[in-house]
């Protein structure tokens, strides 16, 4: 069933009883050419592109909970391609371009809102690093703008210009950055994948990976054994657990990142803004809630909840950046389990096992990567060949000495 203004009117007039399910609820088949573990944004996008762009026909996505129950449904919805290092920037820009045509491609409105993302900086050293980043973006053909204090004041008068402990001296703007409605991204990819014949199998937890003669032959699941020709892992925070089933040694730690939303308020913050004297970032959803977050709690965790000390720290940063947030009431906090890599950058890679592929290490930046991650992972699985924009995102880059360390923090995940 194709969605359109016409379909809405037609269905409304017939009492909205003729809408069809967004996806089938198939029983698992005994064998698939490709199985993707993880029915989140990346797994669903991978399956969609495998089917649509790379002509793979017999695909299943296995999800232990419900579709989109992981990080794709619990992030702060930010979309951007403002990276500094050549290992990252082309990949994220590829993602940005996919975002820009995604809704028409999927026939699903993910409410991509390119309202602009502004990274604030607070001292000369940060300014120089952001200029380096902005120029790196331009090298890749990605427009970026440097805003001085006066321009920022005009654009975002509610920022703390007069009483800041760390004065705001400028910002880097990517106008094409913004937000997208996170759940809708998962649903849109899921629905579109289903239309291309992908079996989306929910409540199906992978409990083992069967290997014969050094290759993967299938997965043990809570719904029985399912055979496969190729296996792709897109399990985000659970990557280490799934990887261990195949004996993979991974440069990943799972950490909890909290996110927050306030009560609905009339729109007042119309950009995505990040604070340079901390990790705080904020935007306002189209429903009116201020959506924000900051740093990870810092300890390894598989619990989708964090602690109050971190909550307080996040709020300190928020109020310091925007004093007028003080009276806004925070409605809800939640946590996502981040697959933090050792250099803060992702991995889309072959593994030591020939038909086992890995998509992981997204840290707290996986949402914006969703389309490109899906496309590049599908490319890798279908062709056994790395997509050019993902060529640096190899699993063996650590032992080879090619980390992609945007923050220069070294191999300690909680510092990225």
């Amino acid at each position, binding site marked *: 069933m194709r969605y359109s203004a016409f379909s809405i009117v037609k269905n409304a007039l017939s009492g909205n009883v003729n809408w069809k399910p967004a996806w089938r609820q198939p029983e698992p088949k005994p064998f698939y050419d490709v199985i993707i573990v993880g029915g989140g944004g990346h797994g669903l996008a991978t399956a969609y592109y495998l089917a649509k762009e790379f002509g793979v026909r017999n695909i299943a996505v296995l999800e232990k909970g419900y579709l989109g129950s992981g990080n794709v449904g619990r992030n702060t919805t930010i979309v951007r391609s403002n990276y500094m290092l050549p290992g990252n920037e082309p990949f994220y820009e590829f993602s940005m371009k996919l975002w820009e045509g995604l809704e028409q491609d999927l026939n699903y409105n993910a409410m991509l809102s390119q309202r602009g993302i502004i990274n604030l900086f607070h001292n000369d050293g940060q300014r120089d690093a952001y200029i380096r980043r902005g120029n790196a973006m331009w090298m890749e053909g990605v427009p970026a703008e440097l805003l001085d204090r006066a321009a920022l004041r005009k654009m975002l008068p509610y920022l703390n210009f007069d009483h800041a402990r760390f004065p705001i001296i400028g910002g880097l703007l990517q106008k094409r950055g913004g937000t997208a409605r996170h759940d809708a991204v998962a649903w849109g990819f899921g629905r579109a994948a289903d239309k291309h014949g992908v079996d989306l199998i929910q409540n199906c937890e992978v409990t083992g990976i069967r290997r014969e003669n050094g290759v993967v032959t299938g997965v043990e699941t809570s719904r029985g054994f399912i055979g496969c020709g190729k296996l792709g892992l897109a399990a985000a925070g659970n990557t*280490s657990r799934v990887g261990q089933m195949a004996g993979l*040694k991974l440069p990943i730690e*799972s950490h909890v990142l909290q996110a927050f939303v306030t009560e609905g308020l009339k729109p007042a913050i119309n950009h995505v803004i990040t604070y340079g004297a901390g990790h705080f970032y904020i935007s306002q959803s189209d429903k009116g809630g201020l959506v924000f977050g900051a740093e990870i709690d810092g300890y390894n965790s598989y*619990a989708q909840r964090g602690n*109050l000390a971190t909550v307080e720290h996040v709020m300190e940063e928020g109020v310091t950046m925007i004093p007028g947030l003080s009276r806004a009431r925070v409605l809800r906090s939640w946590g996502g389990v981040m697959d933090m890599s050792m250099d803060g950058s992702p991995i889309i890679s072959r593994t030591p096992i020939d038909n086992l592929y890995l998509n992981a290490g997204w840290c707290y930046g996986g949402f914006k990567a969703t389309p490109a991650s899906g496309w590049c992972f599908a490319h890798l699985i279908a062709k056994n060949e790395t997509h050019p924009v993902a060529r640096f995102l190899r699993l063996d880059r650590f032992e080879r000495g090619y980390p992609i360390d945007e923050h220069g923090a070294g191999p300690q995940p909680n510092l990225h």
Partner: protein
Amino acid sequence: MASLIPCPHCGIRPKEEFSIRGDASLVRPDPESSDETWNDYVHIRANPRGRYREHWQHVAGCRRWLVVERDTFTHEVFSVSDGAVRPWETSR
């Protein structure tokens, strides 16, 4: 865990008095060890869901590095001990 840590030297303290480094089960290899051993030490993490030993430093307290043994899913703390392998003589 993560709200309060019972420091063996200072007593029960809030999380913000500590900084966290990561896996405490890793042992720094001998200089002669293989490249793989060294790479594993620096880059590879078991990252278990469940029981885990993690290095926390009581930065705002005694500044000792501690081994916090805890559960990464329930956040229950099983034990906290001084990070020095040699038993430390407390002289408080």
